[in-house]
């Protein structure tokens, strides 16, 4: 019983993190139908950005007080990731805006490899994992059920931040002027342009928003696990993409729910399915394939429009 509950808690924490990253995938795909493979690396860059700020900028005094340090790191990671995402859009994807669909996808692969290697080569010490400061309460609250169900404080933080940010994002997209422009572009870029919306600006905003969320996720990740590594981006990115598809691509609520499902599949699959944790990764991909084949519109998506 307590094992099941623990695994559910673990799955939700992991899932919230994945959901936060999935938001970036889902928004970008919703607007320009691009699988931004490099988005996982934006998450990684955010984690290293937070680390850089705490290592090189933040005075030791501030490090001691988590309620001071955490927001600073989060803001720093968000800004750096957002900048990375915007630069990526500007220099890699925008020139290919009207190219056939294969081209930006391959560019995305290139950006992914290049970003990861750039951090490895240029960030001091990044060729091996680096410790990340714990700028939040350490330890866990053990819920007294059975053997006890530990809930990490930093895990709770991830869930809360993730839910709050996705609700805020949903409101932004639904009610703000920029949000309306985003939806308009997603529906028909040419008509939106005729209506006076500058597609480039909206697309950049979308990338920036996705980057900011990924940066926040990166710093939260570092804080939760206490270290960062350059290859966290690829795997987490694939999980997040799976989550975005699962929830119905383009759907904000769907991305978060999809993330939770992926988290649960990983933890519960590793616990109860044959092969144990050695194959938990495989189950996620099995789910991904099954969803793409049988319900490509995901949980909340509408059936895919016919596209050329």
């Amino acid at each position, binding site marked *: 019983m307590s094992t099941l509950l623990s*695994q559910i808690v673990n799955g939700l924490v992991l899932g919230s993190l994945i959901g936060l990253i999935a938001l970036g995938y889902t928004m970008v795909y919703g607007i320009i139908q691009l699988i931004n493979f490099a988005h996982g690396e934006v998450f990684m860059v955010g984690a290293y950005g937070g680390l850089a700020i705490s290592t090189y900028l933040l005075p030791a005094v501030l490090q001691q007080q988590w309620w001071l340090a955490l927001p600073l790191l989060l803001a720093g990671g968000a800004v750096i990731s957002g900048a990375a995402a915007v630069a990526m859009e500007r220099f890699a994807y925008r020139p290919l805006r009207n190219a056939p669909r294969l081209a930006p996808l391959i560019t995305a692969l290139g950006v992914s490899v290049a970003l990861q290697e750039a951090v490895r080569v240029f960030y001091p010490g990044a060729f091996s994992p680096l*410790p990340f400061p714990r700028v939040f309460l350490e330890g866990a609250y053990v819920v007294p059920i059975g053997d006890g169900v*530990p809930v990490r404080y930093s895990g709770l933080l991830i869930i809360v931040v993730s839910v709050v940010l996705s609700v805020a994002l949903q409101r932004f997209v639904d009610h703000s002027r920029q949000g309306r422009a985003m939806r308009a572009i997603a529906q028909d870029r040419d008509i939106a342009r005729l209506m006076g919306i500058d597609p480039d600006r909206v697309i950049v905003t979308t990338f920036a928003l996705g980057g900011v969320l990924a940066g926040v996720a990166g710093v939260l990740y570092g804080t939760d*696990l206490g*270290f960062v590594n350059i290859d966290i981006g690829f795997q987490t990115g694939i999980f997040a993409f799976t989550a975005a598809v699962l929830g119905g691509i383009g759907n904000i609520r769907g991305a978060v729910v999809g993330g939770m499902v992926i988290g649960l599949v990983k*933890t519960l699959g*590793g*616990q109860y399915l044959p092969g*144990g*944790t050695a194959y938990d990764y495989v189950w996620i991909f099995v789910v991904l394939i099954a969803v793409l084949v049988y319900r490509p519109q995901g949980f909340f998506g509408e059936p895919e429009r016919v596209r050329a």
Partner: protein
Amino acid sequence: MSRTRGVAATGVVLVGAMLLAACGTNRSEGDAGGSSCDTSKGTLVIGMIAPMSGGLSAIGLGMRNSADLAVDEANEKCTVPGYQLAFQPEDDQSLPQIAAQAATKLASDPAVAAVVGTYNSSTAQAAAPILAQRSIVQISPGNTGPALTRGEQAATDPKRPFPTYFRVAANDLVQGPFGARYLVQEAGKKRIAVIDDGKTYGVGLVENFVTEAERLGARIVAREKVGEKDTDFSSTIAAIRSSRPDAVYYGGEYPAAGPLSKQLAEAGLDIPLMGGDGIADPQYIELGGRPGDFATNIGAPVESLPSARAFVDAYAAAGYPEPSSAYGPMTYDATNVIIQALAGVVEDGELDDAARAGLIDAVQRTDYSGASGKVAFDEFGDTTNKVLTVSTVEEDGFVPLDTGVFEPAS
């Protein structure tokens, strides 16, 4: 318009950079060789095959620097009479086919005397036959797969496949059981959960640990694997939690082991974690290793070994940008073993075919005291350095607890 301006700006920056660089050179007249040794017989090359790009580059670059240090020191001290030594590192990208290419490249150069490497066992399996065919000595600081020295039936019917292959890393048949003895007999742990990372080193370590631990009467209450790129181990921890282990044995390296230890404690499982030499690194503690964790290490502890200290100091003094990594000392020893043997073989002659055969014999007869302890090889090419140390984590680092000689149970 803006494009032209961009070109112009780039030009200005380039010209500025050039002016800054001015007309400096690193010209140094007269001492092209860097020393006053007799190098009349030419240059001999010590090659290396290691992963210097991609995910394992931290280890590969540490190995490269450590071997480079050994070669530089030998050139300074004129260790090999009549020859200048050169070091030629080759990247294997952790891929067997690239390692085979690198091995062929080195093997077809008559100046190459010996090769240090590889790190992965799979790359060694591809490189060793090529080097063996050309009678080129190979000493690996990192391979742990038993098949490399004892053939496919390593445990039951050992046969040495490559007469030129040696290693200074203890194979898993030694380290796992040694750890098991300490954990079961000294620390009194009876319910042990084992976790590995699915790689050669980790899996081998855990398998041999389990055999010995069960022989000694402990129960293995859970067996789990973590993914190579996994970082959040909470689900693995939750999976072993219900079986109430009193210790965890981890087969793998510190980048995953440190966070794993930390997450164990956070999940309320305040039990010690033990691992092999892959976690015996200061980084382990920085990444989350807790006081009370154990690690086994090959050789006697650094504190009791002046040669180990000397290596650490020399490495720091040489100013390499990357740390020496956990495999630095053993790489340094492997290189020095080759240099010593080479010095004996070419003392009054050149490196011809007879001398190459002599080099293999000389390495086989090695009796050398290096940074990782005593280095000598048994009839399979495995290190006979069965001195192992168990250390534990305390506030300021690993502290040795117990040093012993491992004798396999008959």
